[in-house]
């Protein structure tokens, strides 16, 4: 079992210029931020290195941070029983991330889901289709600027009751 600081240190020595930022000391969510272009190498290292042995990809999450997206890879190791996370940042205009499907089989569906809901394109993914939403759905709902469609295939999607305002943070009294 390695603690997060050791993992981050190992990453920094191995991939000096690729580690942009790290948040490991007394952190609730120890992670490092890495360069997109080196992501695949770093993941390969984390998976194959004996002291890392991150054999389990728990989740891939896309986070909308305004001008850029964060892609978070949450990984654990059954062998060493430790956890870590890798973050990478891609610009909103062209969110392209290399796929890690060939490293963890679990990545296949998680990447599809992230593509579906966040619109991040995973390059090298064998079958990058929408997974939860219909194939002809427009837009990526988890983006902050997503506008709810009025209808889909002629089905009205929102049923607003008359005289039933959304709560918002409205105050009834001044």
């Amino acid at each position, binding site marked *: 079992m390695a603690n997060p600081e050791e993992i981050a240190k190992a990453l920094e020595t191995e991939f000096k210029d690729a580690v942009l930022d790290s948040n490991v000391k007394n952190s609730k969510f120890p992670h490092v931020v890495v360069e997109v272009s080196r992501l695949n190498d770093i993941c390969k290292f984390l998976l194959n290195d004996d002291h890392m042995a991150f054999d389990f990809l728990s989740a891939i999450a896309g986070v909308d941070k305004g001008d850029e997206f964060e892609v978070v890879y949450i990984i654990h190791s059954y062998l060493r029983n430790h956890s870590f996370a890798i973050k990478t940042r891609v610009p909103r205009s062209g969110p392209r991330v290399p796929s890690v499907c060939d490293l963890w089989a679990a990545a296949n569906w998680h990447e599809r889901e992230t593509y579906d809901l966040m619109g991040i394109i995973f390059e090298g993914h064998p079958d990058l289709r929408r997974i939860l939403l219909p194939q002809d759905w427009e837009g990526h709902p988890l983006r902050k600027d997503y506008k709810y469609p009025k209808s889909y295939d002629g089905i009205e999607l929102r049923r607003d009751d008359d005289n*039933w*305002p959304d709560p918002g943070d409205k*105050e009834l009294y001044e």
Partner: protein
Amino acid sequence: MSYFGDIVEAVVSIAKGMGVTIRTMVRPPETVQYPDIDVLDPKMAGYSANLKPVSERFRGILTVNTDSCVVDNLCARACPVNCIQIEGLKGPKTKAKNLLPGGKDLPKTRYPVRFDIHIGRCLYCGLCVEACNTGAIYFTREFRGQTQDYGNLVRHFVSESEAERIKKLAEEEAERAAREKAEKEAKKAASEEKKDTGGDRPEGEDQ
């Protein structure tokens, strides 16, 4: 030999399974003959060993005691699905008896003119009940909410006549408040005038 071993194993295990089903056959059934039995009646406990009445804490359809509602809107804000709509007006200050825990009286100046709960949206999660300080909104054990009209799913807890009455009260109260305010202002103005003149006078007297 596993060939005959398999046969024996199959026969034995099937016989065991059949033993279980035949034993279940002589065990009394668990079914509650629901419409015939009033499941809300606490006396039905003991009707059969496995029959329990709907529990006291059961989260059925919400209901509201508008007398104790102070229109603080906590329930509506706690609701994750926005199924509660409240509108209130400021009225005369009254006291509702024994509503607060500990039997304290509840001072109240706000009155709901609209208290609607959309039971079609309701999740029956209980967050509104926990949010309410006065116990005005609470669960009944009623679970039959079926209706043929979507509109009936909205439960109105303040009747129109009651809303009218409160509106009138509120208007009177507003008028009274306005009058009082006006009087106060007039008094204040008067006193200020007095002060002003009073302030001037000595000067004048001085002169």
